[in-house]
């Protein structure tokens, strides 16, 4: 279960209630960020991408890890291309 979608934090709107405005593809919503930031570190969230579930930020997107996953997939593609090229040249 559990629909979650990444959004970017625009601003902190209510420090006491841990509320921040996020943008998901041009749609804005106030969400609770208590699970992803300590009270003194709320401002650090601005510009960060968070995973939004039922009006709560539940995780900060680790952009380096996202990049790593995509790189693994890209390398897989390159290896496959090389294999195809080798097979083709062997047949030629």
């Amino acid at each position: 279960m559990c629909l979650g979608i990444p959004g970017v934090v625009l601003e902190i709107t209510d420090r006491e209630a841990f509320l921040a405005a996020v943008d998901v593809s041009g749609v804005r919503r106030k969400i609770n960020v208590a699970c992803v930031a300590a009270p003194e570190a709320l401002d650090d969230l601005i510009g960060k991408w968070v995973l939004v579930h039922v009006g709560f930020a539940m995780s900060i997107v680790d952009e380096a890890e996202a990049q790593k996953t995509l790189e693994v997939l890209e390398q897989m593609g390159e290896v496959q291309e090389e294999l195809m090229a080798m097979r083709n040249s062997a047949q030629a």
Partner: protein
Amino acid sequence: MSKGADTIKPRETKLQGDRVTMAHGAGGQSMQDLIDDVFLSAFGNDSLSSLSDSARVETGGGSIAFTSDSFVIDPIFFPGGDIGKLAVCGTVNDLAVSGAQPLALSFSVIIEEGFLVSDLRQIAVSARVAADLAGIKIVTGDTKVVSRGDADGIFINTAGIGLFSDGLGLGPTNIQAGDAIVVSNGMGEHGAAIMVARGDLGLETDLISDCRPLGNLCGYLTKNYPGLRAMRDATRGGVAAVLNEFAVASSKAFFIDEASLPLKPEVRGVSELLGLDPLYLANEGLFVAVIDPAQADAVVADLRKIPGGESAAIIGTVRSDPPGILVMNALLGGQRLVEMPDGEQLPRIC
């Protein structure tokens, strides 16, 4: 793949439950069941039973298109329009997609006691503006006021008549295998804008409803493209409902390509956040056209030059088999069936 019609189970059409629910008004299977079981069984006649957007009424001199629609939208004022504009566009569009030239409109209101006259004035003005844009006059109407609580602000009914051009027989029975499926603009903008405008989901966007009269777009197409087979405006139930109806009425298979669907980022955002499928979101200024594939590129190129058609696109192809279904070729090469919607789409968390 040629498992044919003999393996198709009959659709379940039995009306369920002993009370009317919201699902019975949502433009999907439940509403069809209600119409079949209650109204068609009471009123059934040749003109009604085709359940097309406008009825064809024969007169001595030719055929008249006749249609009616009621409007109960919440909120009454929304980004991109209000209930007055919607009431004109909805009926005019039903005439236009039937291939008829709109002639005259009725405009009847049921108003809740206490409704602001200034709001009523605004609604009337925007109805007039929309009628002018559509080239139609509001020639008759009715006004009723009910006690507070007996209506929600204002309800409007409009009926329209139009003239069918000679020889023009648009309809899903004309659809042939190989035909192209075209949508006239970006999908789901009315449905998404209204969901946001209601305010109870706490969302904000710059999205506006696509509510607009389609007469110009449809008229242009019917005049210039003899390869046009069928058109329908994709209101409640969205593009998915229209394509399912076409698939069943034509006994053809409709295949659409996910990558080709024109969607604004905000419509995608609302859909992803709330777990909705934009294929089921309502439109009020978009029609689906099925057309000879040789003319499809030209139609799209023309539509894109006309306001309200900027994002027109070919979204798929009609095939002969398996009949009566709508299939999505998904983004990555997989496939899924897109069912007839049943009831209102509800936001989900899983």
